[in-house]
Protein backbone atom coordinates (compact mmCIF):
# COMPACT_ATOMS: atom_id res chain seq x y z
CA UNK A 1 0.00 0.00 0.00
CA UNK A 2 1.43 3.29 -1.13
CA UNK A 3 2.15 6.43 0.90
CA UNK A 4 -0.77 8.86 0.93
CA UNK A 5 -0.65 12.65 1.11
CA UNK A 6 -3.50 15.02 1.76
CA UNK A 7 -4.99 17.83 3.77
CA UNK A 8 -6.61 17.19 7.16
CA UNK A 9 -10.18 18.08 8.17
CA UNK A 10 -10.41 17.85 11.93
CA UNK A 11 -13.60 16.84 13.73
CA UNK A 12 -14.35 16.28 17.41
CA UNK A 13 -15.41 13.27 19.47
CA UNK A 14 -18.50 11.15 18.91
CA UNK A 15 -19.01 11.94 15.24
CA UNK A 16 -21.91 9.52 14.92
CA UNK A 17 -23.41 8.03 11.79
CA UNK A 18 -26.25 10.55 11.69
CA UNK A 19 -23.72 13.39 11.61
CA UNK A 20 -21.66 11.65 8.93
CA UNK A 21 -24.68 10.63 6.90
CA UNK A 22 -28.13 11.47 8.10
CA UNK A 23 -30.83 8.80 8.31
CA UNK A 24 -33.17 10.69 6.07
CA UNK A 25 -30.92 10.06 3.08
CA UNK A 26 -30.82 6.30 3.61
CA UNK A 27 -33.10 5.54 0.67
CA UNK A 28 -30.40 6.84 -1.69
CA UNK A 29 -28.57 4.05 -3.49
CA UNK A 30 -26.15 5.92 -5.76
CA UNK A 31 -22.91 6.53 -3.82
CA UNK A 32 -22.22 9.69 -5.81
CA UNK A 33 -25.52 11.05 -4.53
CA UNK A 34 -24.61 9.92 -1.02
CA UNK A 35 -21.34 11.83 -1.26
CA UNK A 36 -23.22 15.12 -1.51
CA UNK A 37 -24.57 14.66 2.02
CA UNK A 38 -21.36 13.65 3.76
CA UNK A 39 -20.94 15.39 7.14
CA UNK A 40 -23.94 17.57 6.39
CA UNK A 41 -25.27 17.40 9.95
CA UNK A 42 -22.00 18.39 11.62
CA UNK A 43 -22.62 21.99 12.70
CA UNK A 44 -20.57 24.31 10.52
CA UNK A 45 -19.74 21.56 8.07
CA UNK A 46 -22.99 21.61 6.07
CA UNK A 47 -21.04 22.19 2.85
CA UNK A 48 -18.18 19.79 3.62
CA UNK A 49 -18.84 17.90 0.39
CA UNK A 50 -18.14 21.06 -1.60
CA UNK A 51 -15.06 22.11 0.32
CA UNK A 52 -13.16 18.85 0.58
CA UNK A 53 -10.65 17.85 -2.12
CA UNK A 54 -9.90 14.32 -3.29
CA UNK A 55 -7.11 12.82 -1.21
CA UNK A 56 -7.96 14.77 1.94
CA UNK A 57 -8.20 13.02 5.30
CA UNK A 58 -10.93 13.11 7.88
CA UNK A 59 -9.32 13.37 11.32
CA UNK A 60 -11.46 12.90 14.41
CA UNK A 61 -11.48 12.34 18.12
CA UNK A 62 -12.83 9.31 19.89
CA UNK A 63 -15.75 7.09 18.91
CA UNK A 64 -15.94 8.05 15.24
CA UNK A 65 -18.83 6.36 13.40
CA UNK A 66 -20.80 5.27 16.45
CA UNK A 67 -24.41 4.40 15.91
CA UNK A 68 -26.11 2.87 12.94
CA UNK A 69 -24.82 0.05 10.78
CA UNK A 70 -25.47 2.12 7.66
CA UNK A 71 -22.74 1.58 5.10
CA UNK A 72 -23.68 4.89 3.50
CA UNK A 73 -21.58 6.56 6.19
CA UNK A 74 -18.50 4.95 4.66
CA UNK A 75 -19.53 5.19 1.02
CA UNK A 76 -20.34 8.91 1.19
CA UNK A 77 -16.78 9.72 2.28
CA UNK A 78 -15.20 7.20 -0.06
CA UNK A 79 -17.04 8.53 -3.10
CA UNK A 80 -16.27 12.06 -2.11
CA UNK A 81 -12.65 11.07 -2.63
CA UNK A 82 -11.64 11.22 1.02
CA UNK A 83 -8.45 9.16 1.38
CA UNK A 84 -9.33 7.82 4.79
CA UNK A 85 -10.41 8.44 8.35
CA UNK A 86 -7.89 8.72 11.15
CA UNK A 87 -9.53 8.88 14.55
CA UNK A 88 -8.61 8.28 18.15
CA UNK A 89 -11.09 5.43 18.19
CA UNK A 90 -13.45 4.13 15.57
CA UNK A 91 -16.72 2.43 16.37
CA UNK A 92 -16.69 -1.23 15.42
CA UNK A 93 -19.42 -1.45 12.81
CA UNK A 94 -18.00 1.60 11.08
CA UNK A 95 -14.55 0.02 11.15
CA UNK A 96 -15.85 -3.19 9.56
CA UNK A 97 -17.85 -1.34 6.96
CA UNK A 98 -14.81 0.71 6.00
CA UNK A 99 -12.53 -2.31 5.65
CA UNK A 100 -15.21 -4.15 3.70
CA UNK A 101 -15.39 -1.26 1.26
CA UNK A 102 -11.65 -0.85 0.91
CA UNK A 103 -11.77 2.50 2.68
CA UNK A 104 -8.81 3.32 4.91
CA UNK A 105 -9.49 3.69 8.64
CA UNK A 106 -6.74 4.11 11.21
CA UNK A 107 -6.88 4.53 14.96
CA UNK A 108 -4.26 6.94 16.27
CA UNK A 109 -4.06 8.24 19.85
CA UNK A 110 -4.28 12.03 20.29
CA UNK A 111 -4.51 12.71 16.57
CA UNK A 112 -7.32 15.24 16.91
CA UNK A 113 -5.17 17.34 19.25
CA UNK A 114 -2.00 17.12 17.19
CA UNK A 115 -3.43 18.02 13.85
CA UNK A 116 -5.25 21.18 12.75
CA UNK A 117 -7.64 21.53 9.85
CA UNK A 118 -5.56 22.39 6.80
CA UNK A 119 -2.43 20.57 7.95
CA UNK A 120 -0.75 18.48 5.29
CA UNK A 121 -0.46 14.80 6.30
CA UNK A 122 1.62 11.98 4.91
CA UNK A 123 0.24 8.58 5.88
CA UNK A 124 1.78 5.15 5.55
CA UNK A 125 -1.10 2.66 5.93
CA UNK A 126 1.30 -0.28 6.26
CA UNK A 127 3.30 0.91 9.22
CA UNK A 128 0.77 3.36 10.62
CA UNK A 129 3.27 6.21 10.51
CA UNK A 130 1.61 9.60 10.12
CA UNK A 131 3.76 12.64 9.40
CA UNK A 132 2.23 16.05 9.94
CA UNK A 133 4.15 17.94 7.28
CA UNK A 134 2.84 21.26 8.52
CA UNK A 135 4.12 20.83 12.07
CA UNK A 136 6.84 18.29 11.44
CA UNK A 137 5.38 16.03 14.14
CA UNK A 138 5.23 12.25 13.74
CA UNK A 139 2.39 10.13 15.06
CA UNK A 140 1.85 6.41 15.12
CA UNK A 141 -1.46 4.76 14.31
CA UNK A 142 -2.24 1.11 14.99
CA UNK A 143 -1.37 -0.65 11.75
CA UNK A 144 -4.00 -2.84 10.07
CA UNK A 145 -3.97 -6.56 10.87
CA UNK A 146 -3.22 -9.24 8.28
CA UNK A 147 -6.79 -10.21 7.44
CA UNK A 148 -8.00 -6.63 7.29
CA UNK A 149 -5.09 -5.62 5.08
CA UNK A 150 -5.77 -8.57 2.83
CA UNK A 151 -9.39 -7.46 2.37
CA UNK A 152 -8.33 -3.84 1.88
CA UNK A 153 -5.73 -4.74 -0.70
CA UNK A 154 -8.29 -6.70 -2.71
CA UNK A 155 -10.39 -3.53 -2.75
CA UNK A 156 -12.95 -4.69 -0.22
CA UNK A 157 -14.87 -7.71 0.94
CA UNK A 158 -16.82 -8.20 -2.29
CA UNK A 159 -13.64 -8.45 -4.33
CA UNK A 160 -12.27 -10.72 -1.66
CA UNK A 161 -15.31 -13.01 -1.99
CA UNK A 162 -14.97 -12.94 -5.77
CA UNK A 163 -11.42 -14.13 -5.49
CA UNK A 164 -12.50 -16.80 -3.01
CA UNK A 165 -15.21 -17.96 -5.41
CA UNK A 166 -12.85 -18.06 -8.35
CA UNK A 167 -10.07 -19.60 -6.34
Amino acid sequence: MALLRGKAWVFGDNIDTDLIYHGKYLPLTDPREMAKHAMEYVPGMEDFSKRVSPGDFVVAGRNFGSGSSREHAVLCLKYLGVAGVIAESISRIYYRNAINNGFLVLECPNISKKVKTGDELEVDPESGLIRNLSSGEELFAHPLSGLEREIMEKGGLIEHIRSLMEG
Partner: protein
Amino acid sequence: MEKIASSKLGREVKAGERVWLPLDLVVIRDFAGPNAILQFEEITKGRGKVFDPERIAITFDYQVPAKDEKVANNQKICREFAERQGIKHFFDVNAGIGQHVLLERGLVTPGSVIIGTDSHMNLLGAVESFSVGVGNTDVVAGFILGKLWFRIPQSVKMVFNGRLSYPVTSKDLALFFVSEMGGDGANYLSVEFYGEVIDSFSLADRITLSSMVTETSGKIGFMVPNDEVKAFLEERVGKSVEIIEADPDAEYLEIREYDVSGLEPLISCPHVPENVKKVRDLRGVKVDEVFIGSCTNGRYEDFKVAYDYLLRVGKGFNPRVRVIFTPSTKEVALRLLREGIASAFVEAGGVFTNPGCSLCTIGHHGILASGEVLLSTSNRNFQGKLGRGSYVYLSSPLTAIASAITGEITDPRDLL
Protein backbone atom coordinates in the same frame (compact mmCIF):
# COMPACT_ATOMS: atom_id res chain seq x y z
CA MET B 1 -17.63 -15.46 23.55
CA GLU B 2 -14.62 -17.70 23.13
CA LYS B 3 -16.82 -20.68 23.95
CA ILE B 4 -19.35 -19.90 21.23
CA ALA B 5 -16.63 -19.44 18.64
CA SER B 6 -14.80 -22.56 19.80
CA SER B 7 -17.92 -24.68 19.60
CA LYS B 8 -18.63 -23.38 16.10
CA LEU B 9 -15.14 -24.13 14.86
CA GLY B 10 -14.49 -27.29 16.85
CA ARG B 11 -11.23 -26.00 18.23
CA GLU B 12 -10.15 -23.60 20.92
CA VAL B 13 -10.44 -19.99 19.84
CA LYS B 14 -8.90 -17.13 21.79
CA ALA B 15 -9.74 -13.46 21.92
CA GLY B 16 -7.88 -11.44 19.33
CA GLU B 17 -7.97 -14.16 16.68
CA ARG B 18 -9.49 -13.39 13.29
CA VAL B 19 -11.72 -16.26 12.28
CA TRP B 20 -14.40 -17.09 9.76
CA LEU B 21 -17.49 -18.19 11.70
CA PRO B 22 -20.39 -20.13 10.16
CA LEU B 23 -23.65 -18.21 10.37
CA ASP B 24 -26.94 -19.53 11.74
CA LEU B 25 -28.94 -16.64 10.43
CA VAL B 26 -28.35 -13.73 8.07
CA VAL B 27 -30.95 -11.01 8.53
CA ILE B 28 -31.80 -8.08 6.30
CA ARG B 29 -34.38 -5.36 6.74
CA ASP B 30 -35.97 -2.73 4.57
CA PHE B 31 -32.96 -0.69 5.63
CA ALA B 32 -29.68 -1.74 3.90
CA GLY B 33 -31.25 -5.03 2.80
CA PRO B 34 -31.91 -3.81 -0.74
CA ASN B 35 -28.30 -2.63 -1.09
CA ALA B 36 -27.14 -6.10 -0.08
CA ILE B 37 -29.50 -7.75 -2.56
CA LEU B 38 -28.41 -5.52 -5.42
CA GLN B 39 -24.75 -6.19 -4.62
CA PHE B 40 -25.46 -9.92 -4.38
CA GLU B 41 -27.20 -9.92 -7.76
CA GLU B 42 -24.34 -8.01 -9.31
CA ILE B 43 -21.65 -10.35 -8.03
CA THR B 44 -23.55 -13.50 -8.88
CA LYS B 45 -24.74 -12.01 -12.20
CA GLY B 46 -28.36 -12.51 -11.18
CA ARG B 47 -28.09 -16.28 -11.17
CA GLY B 48 -26.80 -16.92 -7.68
CA LYS B 49 -28.51 -18.86 -4.95
CA VAL B 50 -28.01 -17.94 -1.32
CA PHE B 51 -26.07 -20.42 0.78
CA ASP B 52 -29.20 -21.63 2.57
CA PRO B 53 -32.66 -20.07 2.18
CA GLU B 54 -33.65 -21.50 5.57
CA ARG B 55 -30.95 -19.46 7.25
CA ILE B 56 -31.91 -16.10 5.90
CA ALA B 57 -34.55 -13.85 7.40
CA ILE B 58 -36.09 -10.67 6.07
CA THR B 59 -37.88 -8.24 8.36
CA PHE B 60 -39.42 -4.85 7.69
CA ASP B 61 -39.46 -2.34 10.50
CA TYR B 62 -37.57 0.73 9.40
CA GLN B 63 -40.26 2.87 7.78
CA VAL B 64 -43.40 0.76 7.77
CA PRO B 65 -45.71 0.88 5.94
CA ALA B 66 -43.53 2.46 3.25
CA LYS B 67 -42.99 6.13 3.92
CA ASP B 68 -42.09 7.14 0.37
CA GLU B 69 -41.44 5.79 -3.09
CA LYS B 70 -37.84 4.84 -2.39
CA VAL B 71 -38.78 2.86 0.69
CA ALA B 72 -41.63 1.22 -1.22
CA ASN B 73 -39.23 0.24 -3.93
CA ASN B 74 -36.69 -1.07 -1.43
CA GLN B 75 -39.31 -3.22 0.24
CA LYS B 76 -40.36 -4.52 -3.15
CA ILE B 77 -36.77 -5.53 -3.93
CA CYS B 78 -36.72 -7.56 -0.69
CA ARG B 79 -40.10 -9.20 -1.34
CA GLU B 80 -39.06 -10.29 -4.81
CA PHE B 81 -35.75 -11.59 -3.52
CA ALA B 82 -37.56 -13.63 -0.85
CA GLU B 83 -39.83 -15.10 -3.50
CA ARG B 84 -36.99 -15.86 -5.92
CA GLN B 85 -34.74 -17.44 -3.31
CA GLY B 86 -37.47 -19.31 -1.47
CA ILE B 87 -36.80 -17.50 1.80
CA LYS B 88 -39.39 -18.66 4.31
CA HIS B 89 -38.50 -16.42 7.21
CA PHE B 90 -40.02 -13.40 5.57
CA PHE B 91 -41.95 -10.92 7.68
CA ASP B 92 -43.78 -8.10 5.95
CA VAL B 93 -44.62 -4.58 7.12
CA ASN B 94 -47.18 -5.74 9.67
CA ALA B 95 -44.84 -7.88 11.80
CA GLY B 96 -42.70 -5.44 13.78
CA ILE B 97 -39.08 -4.89 14.84
CA GLY B 98 -36.84 -7.56 13.36
CA GLN B 99 -34.91 -8.85 16.39
CA HIS B 100 -38.07 -9.07 18.45
CA VAL B 101 -39.94 -10.88 15.68
CA LEU B 102 -37.09 -13.40 15.33
CA LEU B 103 -37.13 -13.99 19.09
CA GLU B 104 -40.89 -14.48 19.20
CA ARG B 105 -40.79 -16.82 16.22
CA GLY B 106 -38.20 -19.06 17.86
CA LEU B 107 -35.38 -18.32 15.42
CA VAL B 108 -32.83 -17.35 18.06
CA THR B 109 -31.04 -19.78 20.38
CA PRO B 110 -28.11 -19.47 22.79
CA GLY B 111 -24.82 -19.91 20.97
CA SER B 112 -26.22 -19.05 17.55
CA VAL B 113 -24.24 -16.71 15.32
CA ILE B 114 -26.39 -14.08 13.60
CA ILE B 115 -25.60 -11.05 11.51
CA GLY B 116 -28.04 -8.38 10.44
CA THR B 117 -28.25 -4.91 8.97
CA ASP B 118 -29.19 -3.31 12.24
CA SER B 119 -26.71 -1.94 14.73
CA HIS B 120 -28.91 -3.23 17.56
CA MET B 121 -28.81 -6.84 16.37
CA ASN B 122 -26.66 -7.41 19.43
CA LEU B 123 -29.64 -7.09 21.75
CA LEU B 124 -30.04 -10.82 21.08
CA GLY B 125 -27.07 -11.23 23.40
CA ALA B 126 -29.85 -11.11 26.00
CA VAL B 127 -30.46 -14.76 25.10
CA GLU B 128 -26.77 -15.55 24.56
CA SER B 129 -26.88 -15.35 20.80
CA PHE B 130 -23.77 -13.88 19.22
CA SER B 131 -25.67 -11.42 17.03
CA VAL B 132 -24.01 -8.41 15.51
CA GLY B 133 -24.95 -5.52 13.33
CA VAL B 134 -23.04 -5.29 10.08
CA GLY B 135 -23.14 -3.34 6.85
CA ASN B 136 -24.64 -4.62 3.64
CA THR B 137 -21.32 -5.84 2.26
CA ASP B 138 -20.92 -8.25 5.16
CA VAL B 139 -24.40 -9.52 4.46
CA VAL B 140 -23.49 -10.25 0.85
CA ALA B 141 -20.58 -12.32 2.09
CA GLY B 142 -22.99 -14.09 4.42
CA PHE B 143 -25.47 -14.75 1.60
CA ILE B 144 -22.81 -16.34 -0.55
CA LEU B 145 -20.47 -18.01 1.88
CA GLY B 146 -22.66 -18.69 4.90
CA LYS B 147 -19.78 -17.49 7.02
CA LEU B 148 -18.09 -14.22 7.93
CA TRP B 149 -14.82 -12.92 9.32
CA PHE B 150 -14.75 -11.80 12.92
CA ARG B 151 -12.16 -10.58 15.32
CA ILE B 152 -12.95 -12.52 18.47
CA PRO B 153 -13.41 -9.77 21.03
CA GLN B 154 -11.90 -9.66 24.44
CA SER B 155 -14.44 -9.77 27.23
CA VAL B 156 -15.26 -7.60 30.17
CA LYS B 157 -17.38 -8.72 33.06
CA MET B 158 -19.93 -6.41 34.66
CA VAL B 159 -21.41 -7.55 37.94
CA PHE B 160 -24.48 -5.72 39.21
CA ASN B 161 -25.39 -6.67 42.74
CA GLY B 162 -28.14 -5.39 44.99
CA ARG B 163 -31.71 -4.65 44.06
CA LEU B 164 -33.32 -1.99 41.89
CA SER B 165 -36.19 -0.38 43.72
CA TYR B 166 -39.32 0.86 41.93
CA PRO B 167 -39.53 3.10 39.96
CA VAL B 168 -35.94 2.40 38.91
CA THR B 169 -35.86 0.07 35.91
CA SER B 170 -33.44 -1.83 33.74
CA LYS B 171 -33.27 1.23 31.47
CA ASP B 172 -31.84 3.27 34.32
CA LEU B 173 -29.29 0.53 34.86
CA ALA B 174 -28.55 0.52 31.13
CA LEU B 175 -27.97 4.28 31.20
CA PHE B 176 -25.76 3.86 34.25
CA PHE B 177 -23.78 1.25 32.34
CA VAL B 178 -23.42 3.53 29.31
CA SER B 179 -22.20 6.41 31.44
CA GLU B 180 -19.73 4.18 33.28
CA MET B 181 -18.38 2.74 30.04
CA GLY B 182 -18.52 5.84 27.87
CA GLY B 183 -19.56 5.97 24.24
CA ASP B 184 -16.61 3.91 23.06
CA GLY B 185 -15.71 2.20 26.33
CA ALA B 186 -16.66 -1.25 25.09
CA ASN B 187 -15.44 -0.79 21.53
CA TYR B 188 -14.65 -4.24 20.09
CA LEU B 189 -15.42 -5.83 23.41
CA SER B 190 -17.85 -8.49 24.50
CA VAL B 191 -19.60 -7.59 27.72
CA GLU B 192 -20.87 -10.27 30.08
CA PHE B 193 -23.44 -9.21 32.66
CA TYR B 194 -23.79 -10.97 35.97
CA GLY B 195 -25.08 -10.37 39.46
CA GLU B 196 -28.25 -10.46 41.52
CA VAL B 197 -29.88 -7.71 39.52
CA ILE B 198 -29.34 -9.51 36.23
CA ASP B 199 -30.60 -12.79 37.66
CA SER B 200 -33.85 -11.13 38.60
CA PHE B 201 -34.29 -9.47 35.18
CA SER B 202 -37.13 -10.48 32.87
CA LEU B 203 -36.42 -11.00 29.17
CA ALA B 204 -37.66 -7.46 28.49
CA ASP B 205 -35.28 -6.03 31.11
CA ARG B 206 -32.41 -7.97 29.59
CA ILE B 207 -33.18 -6.74 26.10
CA THR B 208 -33.18 -3.16 27.32
CA LEU B 209 -29.72 -3.57 28.81
CA SER B 210 -28.19 -5.59 25.98
CA SER B 211 -29.54 -3.21 23.34
CA MET B 212 -27.69 -0.33 24.97
CA VAL B 213 -24.34 -2.11 24.66
CA THR B 214 -24.30 -0.70 21.13
CA GLU B 215 -24.15 2.77 22.64
CA THR B 216 -20.81 1.90 24.25
CA SER B 217 -19.62 0.59 20.88
CA GLY B 218 -19.64 -2.90 22.41
CA LYS B 219 -19.82 -5.81 20.05
CA ILE B 220 -22.21 -7.83 22.17
CA GLY B 221 -23.60 -8.02 25.69
CA PHE B 222 -24.33 -11.48 27.03
CA MET B 223 -26.56 -12.56 29.87
CA VAL B 224 -26.96 -16.15 31.01
CA PRO B 225 -30.69 -16.96 30.69
CA ASN B 226 -32.53 -17.58 33.94
CA ASP B 227 -35.33 -20.13 34.16
CA GLU B 228 -37.95 -17.71 32.90
CA VAL B 229 -35.94 -16.76 29.82
CA LYS B 230 -35.02 -20.38 29.15
CA ALA B 231 -38.68 -21.39 29.36
CA PHE B 232 -39.61 -18.63 26.92
CA LEU B 233 -36.96 -19.75 24.45
CA GLU B 234 -37.96 -23.39 24.67
CA GLU B 235 -41.59 -22.58 24.16
CA ARG B 236 -40.76 -20.51 21.10
CA VAL B 237 -38.11 -22.73 19.59
CA GLY B 238 -40.21 -25.79 20.25
CA LYS B 239 -37.43 -27.84 21.82
CA SER B 240 -35.02 -27.70 24.70
CA VAL B 241 -32.14 -25.24 24.44
CA GLU B 242 -28.70 -25.44 25.93
CA ILE B 243 -27.44 -22.57 28.04
CA ILE B 244 -23.81 -21.57 27.72
CA GLU B 245 -21.85 -20.67 30.81
CA ALA B 246 -18.44 -19.07 30.73
CA ASP B 247 -15.68 -21.11 32.33
CA PRO B 248 -14.82 -20.13 35.90
CA ASP B 249 -11.25 -19.45 34.83
CA ALA B 250 -12.15 -17.45 31.73
CA GLU B 251 -9.93 -14.46 31.07
CA TYR B 252 -11.43 -11.01 31.26
CA LEU B 253 -9.84 -7.79 30.24
CA GLU B 254 -11.54 -6.26 33.21
CA ILE B 255 -14.06 -7.13 35.89
CA ARG B 256 -16.22 -4.40 37.37
CA GLU B 257 -18.53 -4.90 40.29
CA TYR B 258 -21.24 -2.54 41.46
CA ASP B 259 -23.87 -2.47 44.12
CA VAL B 260 -26.67 -0.66 42.33
CA SER B 261 -29.24 -0.69 45.13
CA GLY B 262 -29.09 3.07 45.44
CA LEU B 263 -29.50 3.75 41.72
CA GLU B 264 -31.79 6.65 40.90
CA PRO B 265 -33.81 7.33 37.72
CA LEU B 266 -31.33 8.45 35.06
CA ILE B 267 -31.60 10.32 31.80
CA SER B 268 -29.29 10.75 28.86
CA CYS B 269 -29.05 14.30 27.59
CA PRO B 270 -28.43 15.59 24.05
CA HIS B 271 -26.55 14.71 21.91
CA VAL B 272 -24.75 11.53 22.97
CA PRO B 273 -26.06 8.57 24.97
CA GLU B 274 -23.11 8.71 27.40
CA ASN B 275 -24.20 12.17 28.58
CA VAL B 276 -26.12 10.68 31.52
CA LYS B 277 -27.48 12.71 34.43
CA LYS B 278 -29.93 12.20 37.26
CA VAL B 279 -33.52 12.83 36.23
CA ARG B 280 -34.05 15.03 39.26
CA ASP B 281 -31.29 17.37 38.11
CA LEU B 282 -33.23 18.07 34.91
CA ARG B 283 -36.62 18.58 36.51
CA GLY B 284 -38.62 21.23 34.73
CA VAL B 285 -37.16 20.93 31.23
CA LYS B 286 -40.20 21.29 28.97
CA VAL B 287 -40.90 18.45 26.54
CA ASP B 288 -42.86 18.71 23.29
CA GLU B 289 -43.09 15.03 22.58
CA VAL B 290 -42.67 11.71 24.43
CA PHE B 291 -42.00 8.39 22.73
CA ILE B 292 -42.34 4.95 24.29
CA GLY B 293 -41.21 2.12 22.09
CA SER B 294 -38.17 0.99 20.02
CA CYS B 295 -36.11 -2.21 20.22
CA THR B 296 -34.86 -1.03 23.61
CA ASN B 297 -38.16 -0.44 25.38
CA GLY B 298 -40.90 -1.72 23.10
CA ARG B 299 -41.88 -4.94 24.82
CA TYR B 300 -45.13 -5.67 26.59
CA GLU B 301 -43.56 -5.22 30.03
CA ASP B 302 -42.34 -1.74 29.10
CA PHE B 303 -45.87 -0.61 28.27
CA LYS B 304 -47.40 -2.45 31.19
CA VAL B 305 -45.18 -0.70 33.70
CA ALA B 306 -46.03 2.66 32.12
CA TYR B 307 -49.73 1.77 32.13
CA ASP B 308 -49.71 0.79 35.81
CA TYR B 309 -47.98 4.04 36.64
CA LEU B 310 -50.51 6.02 34.64
CA LEU B 311 -53.39 4.35 36.52
CA ARG B 312 -51.69 4.93 39.82
CA VAL B 313 -51.19 8.62 39.16
CA GLY B 314 -54.68 8.84 37.69
CA LYS B 315 -54.10 11.74 35.32
CA GLY B 316 -54.06 12.12 31.55
CA PHE B 317 -51.20 13.55 29.53
CA ASN B 318 -50.37 17.22 29.43
CA PRO B 319 -52.35 18.46 26.40
CA ARG B 320 -49.33 20.37 25.10
CA VAL B 321 -47.32 17.16 24.72
CA ARG B 322 -47.61 14.67 21.88
CA VAL B 323 -47.24 11.20 23.36
CA ILE B 324 -46.49 8.37 20.95
CA PHE B 325 -46.58 4.66 21.75
CA THR B 326 -45.18 2.07 19.36
CA PRO B 327 -45.27 -1.62 20.21
CA SER B 328 -42.26 -3.59 18.99
CA THR B 329 -44.27 -6.37 17.35
CA LYS B 330 -47.73 -7.43 16.32
CA GLU B 331 -47.79 -9.89 19.22
CA VAL B 332 -47.10 -7.08 21.67
CA ALA B 333 -49.67 -4.83 19.96
CA LEU B 334 -52.40 -7.45 20.22
CA ARG B 335 -51.72 -8.06 23.88
CA LEU B 336 -51.83 -4.35 24.63
CA LEU B 337 -55.12 -4.10 22.77
CA ARG B 338 -56.66 -7.12 24.49
CA GLU B 339 -55.72 -5.95 27.95
CA GLY B 340 -57.06 -2.46 27.47
CA ILE B 341 -53.60 -0.91 27.76
CA ALA B 342 -53.60 0.60 24.28
CA SER B 343 -57.01 1.99 24.97
CA ALA B 344 -55.89 3.63 28.20
CA PHE B 345 -52.98 5.34 26.41
CA VAL B 346 -55.26 6.67 23.70
CA GLU B 347 -57.91 7.83 26.20
CA ALA B 348 -55.17 9.65 28.11
CA GLY B 349 -54.35 11.60 24.93
CA GLY B 350 -51.65 9.46 23.35
CA VAL B 351 -51.11 8.18 19.84
CA PHE B 352 -50.80 4.40 19.46
CA THR B 353 -49.07 3.39 16.24
CA ASN B 354 -48.50 0.23 14.26
CA PRO B 355 -45.46 -1.88 15.30
CA GLY B 356 -42.02 -0.93 13.98
CA CYS B 357 -39.09 1.37 14.64
CA SER B 358 -41.36 4.40 14.44
CA LEU B 359 -39.85 7.50 16.03
CA CYS B 360 -36.46 5.87 16.45
CA THR B 361 -35.67 6.31 12.76
CA ILE B 362 -36.06 9.41 10.69
CA GLY B 363 -39.10 9.43 8.54
CA HIS B 364 -42.03 8.36 10.62
CA HIS B 365 -44.51 9.05 13.36
CA GLY B 366 -43.56 12.34 14.91
CA ILE B 367 -40.35 13.88 13.60
CA LEU B 368 -39.47 17.07 15.42
CA ALA B 369 -39.20 20.66 14.34
CA SER B 370 -36.16 22.73 15.10
CA GLY B 371 -35.94 23.65 18.78
CA GLU B 372 -38.36 20.96 19.93
CA VAL B 373 -37.62 18.50 22.73
CA LEU B 374 -38.31 14.77 22.69
CA LEU B 375 -38.10 12.42 25.64
CA SER B 376 -37.66 8.93 24.24
CA THR B 377 -37.25 5.41 25.57
CA SER B 378 -35.11 4.51 22.58
CA ASN B 379 -31.36 4.19 22.54
CA ARG B 380 -29.88 7.15 20.66
CA ASN B 381 -30.06 10.88 20.94
CA PHE B 382 -27.66 11.92 18.22
CA GLN B 383 -27.84 15.48 17.03
CA GLY B 384 -30.45 15.99 14.34
CA LYS B 385 -31.31 12.30 14.11
CA LEU B 386 -35.01 12.99 14.54
CA GLY B 387 -35.13 16.43 12.97
CA ARG B 388 -32.55 19.13 12.48
CA GLY B 389 -32.16 21.38 15.49
CA SER B 390 -34.17 19.15 17.85
CA TYR B 391 -33.15 17.80 21.27
CA VAL B 392 -33.59 14.20 22.35
CA TYR B 393 -33.37 12.86 25.89
CA LEU B 394 -33.36 9.12 26.68
CA SER B 395 -35.04 7.61 29.70
CA SER B 396 -37.00 4.69 31.08
CA PRO B 397 -40.69 4.21 30.25
CA LEU B 398 -41.53 5.38 33.77
CA THR B 399 -39.66 8.65 33.51
CA ALA B 400 -41.20 9.06 30.06
CA ILE B 401 -44.78 8.51 31.22
CA ALA B 402 -44.33 10.75 34.25
CA SER B 403 -42.99 13.49 32.00
CA ALA B 404 -45.88 13.00 29.55
CA ILE B 405 -48.27 13.66 32.42
CA THR B 406 -46.56 16.83 33.60
CA GLY B 407 -45.24 18.17 30.30
CA GLU B 408 -41.71 18.52 31.63
CA ILE B 409 -38.93 16.15 32.60
CA THR B 410 -40.11 14.53 35.79
CA ASP B 411 -38.61 12.06 38.19
CA PRO B 412 -41.19 9.25 38.36
CA ARG B 413 -40.89 9.25 42.15
CA ASP B 414 -42.29 12.77 42.27
CA LEU B 415 -45.84 11.77 41.30
CA LEU B 416 -46.13 8.76 43.59
